[in-house]
C-alpha cells in the first residue's frame, strides 16, 4: 500500500496547462537538458577561471595587462622623488653610445635641425614652439648615468641638456598635472609620470660626451632620465604635452609595462 506523495506548496492546485507542449514539439525535442547544464557550467567555469568576459579575444592577455597596470601603481608608490641614481666617472663612458630602437640603425631617418621645432601642447601657459638654438641657450646639466635596457644589457653614458623640471617651469607647465607625453619624428610615443619628469636626473638631452649627439641617438633632442628603463627615453622628440589623460605609448601597446621605472 503506497502513501500518496505529500502535497508540495509549489504544486499548482489545478491541472497543468499542457497546451504549450503541443505548440512546438520540434523545438521541445531539440532541447537537451544535459547540454543546457553542461553549457551553463562551462561558461561559468571559464568566466570564473579567467575573471574576464568570455567575449574578449584574449582573456589571459587582458588579465596580465591588468596586473601590469597594478604594477604601474606599485612602482609609483615606491618611487623616491629625490633619491639619486648612481653616477659614474668620465673614464667609464662608452663612446659612441649603444644604439637601440624597434628598427636597425641603418633605417634611422635623420632630423633636419633647420626645419625642426619642439611643439608644446596641453596644460602649458606659454605654448610657443622652440627652435634648437633656443634650447641650446638654456642652462645645461650633465650626468653620467647607466642606461639599462629592458632586454638586460647596460652601458654608461654622459648626457647634457636642460633639466626637464627647469624647462617645464620655464614654459609655465602645470606641474600638478599627471603626465608629460612625447611625440617623436619616427612616430614613437612615450610618456612619464609627473614625479619622474620632475626628478633631478631627468633632462631633455642635446649632447653626448660633451658634443652634439649624433643622429642615431636622438639628434636634436631626446629624453634622458636616470630613473627609467632604456625604452622610456624617447629620441628625436618633436612634441611635448602636459596632460592628465595620457594616450597609450608605443611599447605599452606591445605589452611592455608603462611605468618601467628603475
Amino acid at each position, binding site marked *: 500500500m503506497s502513501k500518496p506523495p505529500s502535497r508540495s506548496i509549489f504544486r499548482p492546485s489545478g491541472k497543468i496547462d499542457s497546451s504549450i507542449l503541443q505548440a512546438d514539439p520540434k523545438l521541445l525535442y531539440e532541447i537537451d537538458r544535459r547540454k543546457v547544464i553542461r553549457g551553463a557550467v562551462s561558461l561559468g567555469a571559464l568566466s570564473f577561471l579567467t575573471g574576464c568576459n568570455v567575449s574578449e579575444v584574449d582573456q589571459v592577455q587582458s588579465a596580465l*595587462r591588468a596586473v601590469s597596470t597594478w604594477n604601474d601603481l606599485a612602482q609609483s608608490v615606491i618611487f623616491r622623488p629625490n633619491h639619486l641614481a648612481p653616477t659614474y666617472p668620465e673614464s667609464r663612458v662608452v663612446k659612441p653610445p649603444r644604439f637601440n630602437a624597434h628598427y636597425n640603425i641603418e633605417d634611422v631617418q635623420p632630423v633636419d635641425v633647420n626645419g625642426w621645432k619642439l611643439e608644446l601642447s596641453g596644460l602649458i601657459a606659454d605654448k610657443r614652439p622652440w627652435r634648437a638654438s633656443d634650447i641650446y641657450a638654456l642652462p645645461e646639466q650633465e650626468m653620467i648615468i647607466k642606461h639599462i635596457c*629592458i632586454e638586460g644589457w647596460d652601458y654608461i653614458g654622459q648626457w647634457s641638456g636642460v633639466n626637464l623640471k627647469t624647462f617645464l617651469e620655464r614654459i609655465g607647465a602645470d606641474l600638478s598635472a599627471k603626465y608629460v607625453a612625447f611625440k617623436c619624428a619616427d612616430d614613437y610615443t612615450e610618456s612619464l609620470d609627473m614625479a619622474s619628469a620632475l626628478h633631478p636626473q631627468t633632462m631633455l638631452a642635446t649632447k653626448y660626451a660633451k658634443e652634439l649627439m649624433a643622429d642615431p641617438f636622438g639628434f636634436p633632442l631626446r629624453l634622458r632620465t636616470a630613473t627609467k628603463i632604456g625604452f622610456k627615453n624617447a629620441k628625436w622628440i618633436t612634441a611635448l604635452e602636459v596632460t592628465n589623460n595620457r594616450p597609450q605609448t608605443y611599447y605599452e601597446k606591445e605589452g*611592455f609595462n608603462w611605468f618601467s621605472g628603475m
Partner: protein
Amino acid sequence: MGINSVTTMSPGVGAKLRRMHPLPIRIMHWVNAVAMFIMIGSGWKIYNDEVIFGWLHFPEFLTIGKWAQHGLQWHFLGMWIIFFNGLAYLTYGFATGRFRRMLLPIAWRDVVATIKDSLRLKLSHDDETKYNAVQKLLYIGVLLAGVMIVLSGMAIWKPVQFSELYFLFGDFQTARLIHFFCMAAIVGFVIVHIALAILVPKTLVAMVAGGPIVSDADQSGARHMNETGNHP
C-alpha cells in the same frame, strides 16, 4: 591496552600533535610550486632576449609567453606571489620552530654516511618524517638560493629605488649573473626533488594529505602516533 599504552607512546604531557606537513605548509608549498613554474618559464623567455652565455638559449617550448614582453608580464605577476608566499613561509618556519626542528642539527659524519648510502643506491626512507643530513643541507641550500634570487631580482628590478641593495651586488650585470645562478641552483634542486618524490611516492602524498602525525615536543621529529591513540 588503552590508557596506559597511549601514555607510553605519548611524547609528553602538553606536547602538541600535528601532521608532519601542517595545512599552511602544504598550501604554501603548492602556491610556491605554481609561482616557481611561472617564474622559471618566463625567466627563460626574458633570458633568451639577451643571453648571458652565447652557448645557452632555452628551448622556446620550455618558455612562458609569446614574446619577451609577455615573459616580463608573467614574471611581474609571479614575483608578487613568490615574494609574499616566501615571506609567509619564512615567518612560519621561524615562528613555529619548524626550521629548527626539521633542518637542524646537521652532523657532518651523517652527511658523509648518507652520501655513501645513496651511492650504493640504499635510499631507505623508513621514516619520512625525519630528514636525513643530505636532505637538510639541500633544503637549507634551496632556501638560501630562494632568498638570494629574490634579493638579486629586486636589485635588477629597481637598481635606482633600491640602490642600497643594488650596491651590495656591485653591478647590474653581477646581479643578473647571481640571479641566473640562483635559478640554476633552484632548477637543479627541483629536478632532484621531483625525481625523489616519484621514487618515494609517500612523500608526495604527505605534501597533499599532511603525512603522519608527529609531535612538536619531540626534537628528533618522528614519534608515530596512531591517529585514534589506541594501541593494542
